[in-house]
């Protein structure tokens, strides 16, 4: 098991190297001069542009820039943000807590809500409960996040005044968490429902009932455990999404976060920040995959890694 994990983790190294190299090149190949974008359309003189190019190291040839990037990245130094002049690690560290908060809260809402709706729908198929749960799931999947966000802000922030719109603290996390989790709610609810319907007809469920087990035990221990399998896969994918997928939620609720940082940095071609963030996102995806593999082994005794 541990050897398997170790091997998986070692594979992350080439993945990260390829990802960062691609990021480095693609950023520089797509049109747009970082200095122009930084000046955001301002008619600056050639002197300003020259100074900025020199300051940002953009006047060096591309291979030299790449060598510089790799040598420093190996030491964990991703340079300084073009926009703010701060070390990239610091820029990311400032935004990370808010992202983790949102990801954590969104994960809880998404997985919790998805499981609850899915189980309810799976246990009472073709009833009003099922209908309501699947309708909510449909909304979660198909409505764009910003639309859900605007409706929530309007009703719960403005009309009812239950939660602040842009304030800080835990209450201000509720709406963003719901918006962020809504996609996961929808996806998981459908998946769990069909998994439960699948396993309900299995022999071992009938056996469990025949043994005289309580319905609660049948559902939670026997049905759900097997139904969880596809859920774990899905959750792993969502975990990756949670790292950089907060753009809309972060923007609409005026929150800090890596998603919005990534988008702004791409649009302004803030190379150092984008490179570091892509490295981070790639690492998060790879790590989430390894984690999923490990969890498979835990919930399913049939799976053992050599």
């Amino acid at each position: 098991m541990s050897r398997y994990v170790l091997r998986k983790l070692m594979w992350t190294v080439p993945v990260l190297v390829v990802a960062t190299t691609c990021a480095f090149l693609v950023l520089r190949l797509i049109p747009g001069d970082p200095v122009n974008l930084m000046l955001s359309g301002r008619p600056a003189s050639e002197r300003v542009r020259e100074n900025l190019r020199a300051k940002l190291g953009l006047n060096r040839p591309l291979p030299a820039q790449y060598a510089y990037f790799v040598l420093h990245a190996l030491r964990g130094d991703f340079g300084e943000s073009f926009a703010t002049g701060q070390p990239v690690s610091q820029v990311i560290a400032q935004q990370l807590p808010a992202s983790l908060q949102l990801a954590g809260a969104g994960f809880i809402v998404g997985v919790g809500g998805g499981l609850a709706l899915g189980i309810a729908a799976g246990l009472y198929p073709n009833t009003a409960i099922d209908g309501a749960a699947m309708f909510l799931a449909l909304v979660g999947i198909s409505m764009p996040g910003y639309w859900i966000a605007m409706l929530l802000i309007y009703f719960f922030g403005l009309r009812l005044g239950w939660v602040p719109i842009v304030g800080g603290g835990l209450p201000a996390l509720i709406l963003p968490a719901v918006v962020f989790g809504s996609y996961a709610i929808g996806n998981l609810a459908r998946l769990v429902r069909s998994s439960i319907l699948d396993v309900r007809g299995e022999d071992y469920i009938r056996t469990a009932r025949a043994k005289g087990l309580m319905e609660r035990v049948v559902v939670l221990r026997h049905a759900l455990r097997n139904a969880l399998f596809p859920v774990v896969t899905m959750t792993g994918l969502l975990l990756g999404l949670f790292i950089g997928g907060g753009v809309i939620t972060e923007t609409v609720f005026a929150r800090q976060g890596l998603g919005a940082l990534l988008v702004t940095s791409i649009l302004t071609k803030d190379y150092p920040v984008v490179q570091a963030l892509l490295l981070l996102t790639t690492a998060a995806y790879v790590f989430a995959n390894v984690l999923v593999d490990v969890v498979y082994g835990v919930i399913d005794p049939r799976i053992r890694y050599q």
Partner: protein
Amino acid sequence: MTSDGRARWSRRGFIKGTAAAALAAGPLAGMLASAVAQTSRTDATLTWGEDQDYATLDPRVTQSRHEAQAIMQMFESLLFLDTDGRFYPWLAQRWDYSKDGKSITFALRRDVKFHDGTPFTAEAVKFTFDTIIDPKLGSQGAIDFLGPYKSTDVIDPYTVRVNWTEPFAAALTNLSNPWLLSIVSPAAVRKLGNNGFARNPVGTGPFKFVEWVPRVHVVMERNDAYHWAPSPFKRQGPSALKRVVIRIIPDDSTRVAALDRGEIDICDQVPPIEVKRIRGSQGFDMMIGDVSGIPLAHLINTQLEPTDDLRVRQAYMYAINRPQVVQQVFFGVAKPAYGPITPTTPGYWAGVEKLFTYDPAKARQLLDDAGWKVGPGGTRTKNGRPLEIHFITLLEPDLEVAVQAAVKDVGIKLNVERVTKARQDEMVMHGQYNIGEIRWVAVDPSVLDIPFFSHNVPAPGKFKFNWSRFGSPELDRMLRLADGQVDVKQRDKTLADIQQFVLQRGLMFPVHVSPQPIGFRRAVRNLKFAQGYWQVLFYGASVD
């Protein structure tokens, strides 16, 4: 000039005899004003909802009018240029142009301290300007505002002379800019370094920096030692506001909702469609700035078919009913613009209002004359080719769609392409467009150099703003002349010639004055637009 006890200069008369009047300015005006507005709360926090995130708070580095909103509450410049177009003493009590127009000598206030407790002296002025031109700083805005800057001489601790290599007509306007050429604390810069200073700014202004959380807010608090406000404020001494918070809320709807809910006191850039509602709701009001500088304008490429033909360019300009189009898109929030600089900009020539007013018959005639005949579907053709004009839009796609409909009437097919900034830059540098849009907030008419000087024609690898790609020695000569004309009357005459010239050659079609619609809670009083009508100064404000 000082009949009401307040020193006032029209910018037309600033060259001679400012000294005596300046002496009478500060204290007297202060005593008159201080009695006025001391009844409101002194513990209030004022929260401004800002639509864009910040990258720096160093006035020497920034180029962003959004960052300016925070910077100008904490920093001050040598002179105060009010929205009435007059200069008032600020950190400098008086100033004198040298005879050759290449130097200005400033007598500085002696009682000003930076937020870090160090005194404001001539050395700080020299330090600020000298560091701005240091390439290592990477100045994005201030360095251009210094113009042909040569040096600063410290004559004594409170007298300083700024020198240029040639006469610089924009000098006073630029030096009065409260967010680009405002004075920084040399001690703080030396202690923190340039990057550190950008995150812990130290100036002399009425508010002191407290905290900046990127993407969330900038917090400032009252400078209790402050007693050197310029006379146009109806106030002296420390501000009535205890704290000022700039809350970053990029999404328009969220920002307006936050104002409705009372989570912020002021909302910048209210979407035009919300303006009427906010103005009509209880407890809220709007103020709308008619921004100075270059209006939202179409620059027409003179080097690419079919707009290389003057008649086509002029027909385009006659075909658009500006008041109607602007009303459709802005619901009365923006005013139509007729000239390359807006009416609130010094040097504005009102003659532009009679040029190229809506005249579809004339537009059709011009196109007929140019050989473009009405073809099937209403689009004109010539030698089998349709009259298609390629329009790239980044700033205001909604407006351009309205324009598209307007010119269709005279047989022009306007292909409006929505582009990203990066794509726009590429197309501009390679000349692959007929029309593009610009607008620029500026206080000095020298802003006209940007779209019209021949050396600003874009080329591959060289992103510039002369998008009409029109280079003429005559226009260059007029622009250069205006840049060096320290005498305002003479300069205004040259500027009038320039404004007429660029319209008649069909280089630019001005569309509307940029509006800055600001919504606020009625409890907030005495908000004041800064020069240029974009940012708002909080110093004189109070909350009931």
